[in-house]
């Protein structure tokens, strides 16, 4: 029982990380109509900048600040130099140009930091474990990640539903042309939204640093999982991103943790392990297939 609770918390933590990425991706698509493959690179930039600054200064907080700043600045720079020219292009051009950006960022990072993964120490304040549920000691850091993610989700909700900028964002997602026609400075809005998305991706990256190794290509592994989230949740919908991310995070973690064990009850050990590993690594994609069969536009379609 306690093991299940622990894995549920792990699933929540992965879900929260996915949400931070999916929110940016889905907002950028919803408003600018751009598919940005380089979103995962911003995740990586956040993680590397935080790891580097934390290593230099010995302070996790300074590292976190550096990660956020680097991701947001590079995000805005990328929007200014490349993405801005892609808004009116078709998806194919967007995919290729941002694929080029991925090659650039990955190789650039490898040139700067080498191919060896970096490891980041946990901040001392958050390094222990607590028993929030009696009998289940759980790392404080992971709880903090979950808390930050939920806070960001709440903050985004307020921002989008109760502020003027949020109103423009919603209006932009519904009808871009109309917002432009009403005299809103769309360029500024686009840059802001893109910067916000980059910031969230950087936040996810810097928080993931101490949990997994920081390495080249980390952005793309999680980016593809984020795509699954966005497809399941419904593209362009932040609410869909929340539910999709939690669903994918929980499903992925629980399948990996328990499927081999369950299968071992029915078949021989090594075969069960192999089959279990195979199915659980494909699990979220199968989940996506099922959602698609039932609801081709995702669980929470953004328009209509």
């Amino acid at each position, binding site marked *: 029982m306690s093991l299940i609770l622990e894995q549920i918390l792990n699933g929540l933590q992965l879900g929260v990380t996915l949400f931070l990425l999916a929110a940016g991706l889905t907002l950028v698509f919803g408003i600018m109509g751009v598919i940005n493959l380089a979103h995962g690179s911003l995740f990586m930039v956040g993680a590397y900048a935080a790891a580097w600054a934390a290593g230099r200064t010995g302070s996790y907080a300074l590292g976190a600040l550096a990660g956020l700043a680097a991701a947001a600045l590079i995000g805005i720079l990328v929007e200014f130099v490349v993405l801005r020219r892609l808004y009116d*292009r078709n998806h194919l051009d967007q995919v290729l140009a941002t694929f*080029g950006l991925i090659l650039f960022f990955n190789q*650039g990072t490898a040139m700067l930091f080498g191919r060896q993964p970096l490891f980041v120490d946990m901040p001392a304040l958050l390094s222990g474990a607590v028993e929030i549920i009696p009998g289940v000691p759980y790392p404080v850091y992971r709880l903090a990640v979950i808390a930050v993610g939920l806070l960001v989700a709440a903050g985004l909700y307020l921002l989008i539903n109760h502020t003027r900028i949020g109103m423009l964002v919603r209006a932009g997602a519904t009808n871009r042309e109309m917002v432009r026609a009403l005299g809103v400075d769309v360029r500024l809005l686009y840059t802001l939204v893109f910067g916000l998305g980059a910031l969230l991706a950087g936040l996810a990256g810097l928080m993931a640093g101490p949990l997994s190794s920081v390495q080249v290509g980390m952005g793309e592994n999680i980016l593809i999982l984020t795509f699954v989230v966005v497809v399941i949740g419904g593209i362009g919908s932040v609410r869909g991103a929340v539910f999709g991310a939690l669903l994918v995070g929980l499903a992925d973690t629980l399948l990996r943790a328990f499927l081999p064990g369950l299968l071992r009850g029915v078949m021989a050990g090594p075969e069960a392990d192999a089959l279990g590993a195979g199915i659980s690594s494909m699990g979220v994609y199968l989940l996506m297939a099922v959602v698609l069969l039932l609801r081709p536009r995702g669980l929470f379609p953004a328009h209509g």
Partner: protein
Amino acid sequence: MARAAVEPGLRPLAWEMRGRVALALAFVLLAALPFVLPLLGAQAVVGLATRMLIYAIAAASLNLILGYAGLVSFGHAAYYGVGAYVVGILYAHWASDEPLLGLVPGTDQFLLAVPAAVIVSGLAALVLGALSLRTSGVQFIMITLAFAQMLFFLFVSLDHYGGDDGLIMRRPNALLGLNLRDDATMYLVALGALALYLLLLSRIVRSRFGRVLSGIRQDERRVIALGIEPYPYKLAAFVIAGMGAGLAGALMANMTRFVSPDMLHWTKSGEFMIMVILGGVGSLFGPVLGAACLIGLEYVLAGLTEDWQFYLGPLLVLVVLFARGGLSGLLGRRAGVGGSDG
């Protein structure tokens, strides 16, 4: 530029003839290449040229859905990898002499393994395409990518077939007493396969089926209004493209005598797309040009610097931003022959 407006079907006969003569000439020149290159002391280039031909098959197959039907599939490497793995797995079972799942005997025969690879990758494309094509636009891009990643993880988890490390074939498949280890032989086999596949594609593109695909790209709603249901057409094109990629994978497995999950990696799908774009979307020979160009560029850049991707990436961005229509667009404009439609 007036000629550019002429539809391919309505082209004057002289044009048609001239095109055919040029094609036959190009084919003969290409076929002579493996015998000419060693005379120039460039034996090693034969292997490089073979890779270009094999990748050209994969790129041409992607072009059918991407260029003609306008379906941006970002998971094409999946079918390429499945084709390669079918050859590899059949070979492994032939070598160990135990049937696959206790039913299917393994084989090292090219004429059995390669068609099997084509069929299995076609089936994979049928299943995944049937699901993916329920969506469109950006979702379609994401889903094809995600399903390809799913197959990638599937092969990584198959420890029995090498898992992460992949599967080594001790020998290439046996084909009518030919020695596929020989560079020139492998090259000619790949060239023959490419020629046949391009011939098939040219027939498809000119058929009614091909016209419908083009119509779907230009305006899907109009196609529907004409009383044509697009889904079966898209799915059929997706399967044909998947089979082409499977053929390319099966040939590559024979050439390198090695298959690994890397062949299904998403960057491979990206490379296929680059080849199509570089060569020019929706032209029959564009992808061939694009494949040759990208492989050549990678070869040259990799020879100059270890960090070639650092330079290739921005180059790609520039191509997308400033060179629309790709290489064949540029060449075509110079020669005064434009694409068949805008």
